[in-house]
């Protein structure tokens, strides 16, 4: 076997990475209010408790609204930026792109407090809309990263052929380019959706009196009794995000293959 010790180490590392996620379903189905070992028995009552919980339902509804809107807006902004950077050279390109990609490394709390100060300063009330503002900001760099690899491999002669055949810039984009990068677009929508659904700090600062799913989860950590239900909820969320990410990955790879690019691996 190639890479003997490295392989052992890499598998050990994967176990470390997955340790918390493996524990999640164990406690979600465990028949005890206290989250600790040893396990006491099997139950599905934590799952059924979720169905009779109006605050949770409201949080889910809010989160879905925020996540869908943020993913659509950030993907649109991502399309503009990815197209601009892969196709054109222009002044201030590095500076502007640096600013747009900054949220990728900037601590989220900085994004959150600076937006909070400005929004309150100009008299905008905190609501789900302000959460969307913040989420679009942090989702856009990820959208750009995914979409750039989809746009990168585009053959420019296809576009020129369309112009020669009398198409306008807009119809060329709609008929030729968009179908080619569509898998990347879908992948970007799903990733942005997953990020927004999971994002806590920005929502915590900018939601005002509204709750999103992570805010609800965070508030429940204070009540030991509520924690098993959160474990059940977490199990569902983890399954959901794994499904979404798998679909996103399939589309991302298909997109790169379609545009004739080479897979460099990973979302980042």
């Amino acid at each position, binding site marked *: 076997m190639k890479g003997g010790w490295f392989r052992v180490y890499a598998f050990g*590392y994967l176990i470390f990475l997955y340790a918390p996620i493996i524990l999640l379903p164990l406690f979600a189905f465990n028949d005890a209010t206290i989250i600790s070992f040893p396990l006491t028995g099997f139950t599905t009552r934590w799952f059924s408790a979720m169905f009779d919980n109006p605050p949770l339902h409201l949080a889910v509804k809010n989160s879905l609204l925020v996540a869908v809107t943020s993913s659509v807006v950030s993907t649109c902004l991502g399309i503009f930026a990815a197209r601009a950077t892969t196709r054109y050279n222009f002044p201030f390109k590095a500076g502007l792109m640096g600013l747009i990609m900054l949220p990728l*490394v900037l601590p989220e*709390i900085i994004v959150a407090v600076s937006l909070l100060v400005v929004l309150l300063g100009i008299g905008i009330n905190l609501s789900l809309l302000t959460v969307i503002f913040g989420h679009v900001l942090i989702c*856009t760099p990820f959208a750009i990263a995914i979409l750039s690899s989809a746009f990168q491999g585009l053959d420019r002669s296809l576009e020129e052929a369309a112009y020669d055949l009398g198409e306008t810039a807009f119809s060329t984009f709609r008929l030729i380019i968009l179908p080619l990068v569509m898998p990347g677009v879908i992948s970007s929508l799903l990733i942005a959706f997953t990020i927004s659904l999971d994002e806590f700090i920005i929502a915590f600062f900018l939601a005002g009196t509204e709750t999103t799913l992570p805010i609800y989860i965070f508030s429940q950590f204070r009540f030991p009794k509520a*924690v098993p239900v959160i474990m059940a909820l977490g199990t569902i*969320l983890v399954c959901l995000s794994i499904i979404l990410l798998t679909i996103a*990955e399939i589309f991302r790879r298909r997109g790169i293959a379609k545009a004739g690019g080479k897979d460099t691996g990973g979302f980042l």
Partner: protein
Amino acid sequence: MQNGTRWGRFRNSEAASGLLLLSPTAIYAILMLAAPLATITLYSVFKDGYLTIIREFTFDNYIEAWTNVQIRSVMIRSLGVSLSVTAATVLLAFPVAYFVSFHVPPARKSMWLFLITIPFWTSYLIRVFLWKVILGYNGVVNSGLLGLGIIDEPLTFILYNVNAVVITLAHAYAPFAILPIFVSLEKIDRSLLEAGLDLGESKFRTFLRVTLPLTMPGVVASVLIVFIPTVGDYVTPHLVGGPEGRMVANLIQLQYLKLDNYPLGSALAVSAMGVVTVVSLLFLYLNRRYLRGPQS
């Protein structure tokens, strides 16, 4: 007239098309990111008049942020935690990236990367909370070690302190560290390594003298991408850090949402960013020195 044609030429030029196309995204980033960042920088030199802000220039917030003993200890702790997390993640991640790049067949590399990134995307809050379960008094680690008879009573130094914060953050940011290193390992021309071996270097020396310097851009990216956001992490110190593990984000949150002292909160945020920038630049400088080689 000449201006008109110049403008006309500019309008049809590549530069104009590119700028126009980028403008929606760029304007959004300027309005929602650059302007807010400028605003907190401005707020940080204003006076706090409880619930209102007095628009008078002052350095008091910075003096408070840098001389208050409690604030300073939290700042130093945040920096220490971030540096340890960065060192741990990058050192632990390097062999994994190396394994995936050098020992995994090309067709299965994407699958490995996918497996590594999945935990990163799944419910951050719940993952952090689960570390509490793993490290807690009756937690997985303690019950495991007790069961094996290695310890007689539960370990208490692994939860509600700085160690717990470091472990949890190192776990959360692990995939972030692997990817850039992997990408730069992939770019290395394998024939350079063969040349190193052919010229009589040992495998380890080849690694030190060829692979490692060529991987440095990836390592640098990993270090920065882990170091910068971890300084500002709020959830992990809040949930597993206990009173001994509070970090600068918790202080910022306190100033903004509990004490309504925006100027001091802003000064803390700006100071934290400043410290992070200085450390990052220092690191980039050291890296450049290292790549230039021992002769200079």
